[in-house]
């Protein structure tokens, strides 16, 4: 290979790359997407970002944008790697009229913690994100919408209580938590302990080292412990292996309760028959029967603009999560537009919209999302928004919802969040905002 020729080629390549530009023009609102379509978590990434893009497309096709402001976006591949996510952020934030970032990655959210404050750009982490970021006084630009880890934990315990016939029945029961050996997995350890004290159930928490493709030891320990329930706080390949290993040691799968990152089709399909009867938590049920999903099918896929390659995945857990994420983002913009005017907004103005994101059941019905999401009520202090969750069961082919909306015990948990946030504030010399609401 001729070296000089390849250098010439590279120069041409640089010239092209530098010429690349961003799509947004004057009256367009731009969504920078840090998507991941390759790598170990590609299945989740394609579903979520597929749903998000499908909903943005629906708004453009059906309504001609939000109050006439077109929505645009561009994708930057992160492969779920933090430094790629940071590079994407630094590159994309210079785009015009940036609305908000939606990384769908705890690692990338963590790296953007300080950047978002200096750049004044909202970071939306639906169903995930660090616990402390729910406290809007310290983290004005972070929004772990719908559900944070403490709420999730509380909802799972509440649900187990309901199944046993009341919270008081939890007393004397034994619950094992099987968690992923990562910061994400360990984040809820003190919360489970707190709940165990409050409700009087016996608790054992067992760690599965990353990636979790062999859980013989953990499940033998579980078999010996003979718990009434096992809570699965899994991630990626750890989930199907946990389900299979449960079967292997004879543990009934319908007493295995998965958390929000153990609840997708991708988590159960690999486990095959063993997953029949497995239960998991969800903020947005799967299925295509919701009017808004129907409209996505008609208007977006009908026009050949659908994002999912495999049409069978429409209405899957990740796809619907993407759609719900789309709803929340678009409604935040709509709310902000009502205050600042029907035009493309700055990211600071969009932040105001997220901070006043209030969707009651009436509005959700108008959006065609009844059953897909109950309500949300974000405030200056509470960036989570009091979301509710449901529980679903896998029948070997699809998920079916088996519970009503379950509300987490937020009063009990709020002090944990505030303590974590205040500690961060002290460590980093931040003066928390005063929220007068």
């Amino acid at each position: 290979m001729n070296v000089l020729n390849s250098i010439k080629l590279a120069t041409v390549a640089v010239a092209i790359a530098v010429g690349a530009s961003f799509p947004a023009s004057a009256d367009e609102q731009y969504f920078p997407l840090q998507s991941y379509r390759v790598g170990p978590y590609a299945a989740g990434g394609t579903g979520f970002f597929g749903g998000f893009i499908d909903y943005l497309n629906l708004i453009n096709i059906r309504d001609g944008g939000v109050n006439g402001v077109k929505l645009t976006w561009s994708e930057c591949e992160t492969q779920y790697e933090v430094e790629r996510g940071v590079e994407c952020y630094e590159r994309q934030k210079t785009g015009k009229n940036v609305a908000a970032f939606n990384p769908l990655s705890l690692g990338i959210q963590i790296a953007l913690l300080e950047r978002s404050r200096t750049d004044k750009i909202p970071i939306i982490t639906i169903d995930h994100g660090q616990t402390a970021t729910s406290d809007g006084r310290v983290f004005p630009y972070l929004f772990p919408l719908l559900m944070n880890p403490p709420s999730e934990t509380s909802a799972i315990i509440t649900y187990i209580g309901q199944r046993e016939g009341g919270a008081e029945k939890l007393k004397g029961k034994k619950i094992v938590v099987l968690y992923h050996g990562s910061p994400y997995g360990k984040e809820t350890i003190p919360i489970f302990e707190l709940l165990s004290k409050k409700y009087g159930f016996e608790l054992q928490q067992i760690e599965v080292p990353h990636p979790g493709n062999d859980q013989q030891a953990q499940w033998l320990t579980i078999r010996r412990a003979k718990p009434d329930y096992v809570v699965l706080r899994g991630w990626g390949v750890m989930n199907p292996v946990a389900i299979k290993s449960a079967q292997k040691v004879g543990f009934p799968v319908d007493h295995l309760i998965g958390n929000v990152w153990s609840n997708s089709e991708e988590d159960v399909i690999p486990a095959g028959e063993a997953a029949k009867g497995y239960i998991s938590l969800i903020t947005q049920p799967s299925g295509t029967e919701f009017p808004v999903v129907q409209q996505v099918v008609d208007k977006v896929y009908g026009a050949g603009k659908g994002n999912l390659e495999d049409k069978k995945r429409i209405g899957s857990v990740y796809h619907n999560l993407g759609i719900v994420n789309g709803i929340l983002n678009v409604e935040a913009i709509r709310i902000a537009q009502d205050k600042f005017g029907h035009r493309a907004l700055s990211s600071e103005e969009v932040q105001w919209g997220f901070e006043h994101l209030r969707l009651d059941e009436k509005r959700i019905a108008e959006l065609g999302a009844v059953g897909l999401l109950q309500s949300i009520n974000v405030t200056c202090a509470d960036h989570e928004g009091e979301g509710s969750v449901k529980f679903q069961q896998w029948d070997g082919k699809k998920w079916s919802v088996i519970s009503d909306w379950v509300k987490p015990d937020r009063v009990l948990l709020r002090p944990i969040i505030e303590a974590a946030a205040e500690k961060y504030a002290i460590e980093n010399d931040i003066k928390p905002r005063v929220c007068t609401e």
Partner: protein
Amino acid sequence: MFDYQFFIEVLVGGLLSGVMYSLVAIGFVLIYKTSGVLNFAQGAMLLFAALTFVSLVERGVPFAAALLLTLVVMVLLGIAIERTVLRPLVNQPPITLFMATLGLSYVIEGAAQLLWGTQVHGLDLGINDTPFTVAGVFISQFDLFAAAIAGAMVALFALFFRYTRTGLAFRAVADDQFAALAVGLRLPRVWAAVWTASGIVALVAGLLWGARLGVQFSLSLVVLKALPVLVLGGFDSVAGAIVGGLLIGAIEKIAEVYVGPFFGGGIEAWAAYVVALGFLLVRPSGLFGQKLIERV
């Protein structure tokens, strides 16, 4: 009181896990033995094999035909790797070769996902995974099946290496490359055969692991389970890979169950390496590794 029954259960479970580790480790050993390459792409090959097989089955190809087709694909892949990657890199230092296989794993992973998509697949080999009990000890049917397959594969390889011309050539090369060259053995042909063999191992391991984990990207991570096995058993010994796998499997589980609680659990990730290391400090070339100039 010490619960012996439980201990036996952990031990058996660990040994059966160990079989699965050996399965991956053997693929490494075959290649290392003949060409001195630590083939990190073994994981990617495993993924590629399983993904190809599953995708064929899902597209309506009958089980046996899919198996055969995948086998052909893996053989072609092995030969292609030998031609395009290893042959031009002959005589490079081992670290360069190792890096090349890392690059190779990028290519294979990318190609596998490009061809068959990033979807997660279930793989059902038709073996029930419900356990049965022997004297109160739970034993997984699937794990026994996997052990049987692994045993059969090793036996077939043993026969092949003992009684066929290529097999003999393989052993000659593994013994002494220069002598093999001197008596007129054609190294590239042997290498192609070895890469083919490791492709077959990748297929078998990919199917068995795929049935446990589902066929998805993370399948390529099982190589990490095989590395301590290699350290313990020696990079160049098939027997070492088998015994090492069993040992690592058993030690890992016993450590996690009995020692893990003192540290809050999760020690499996490094316990295997520490054990292998401790062993190596006593015997620097592993259980069955060749004692060459490795000693300081």
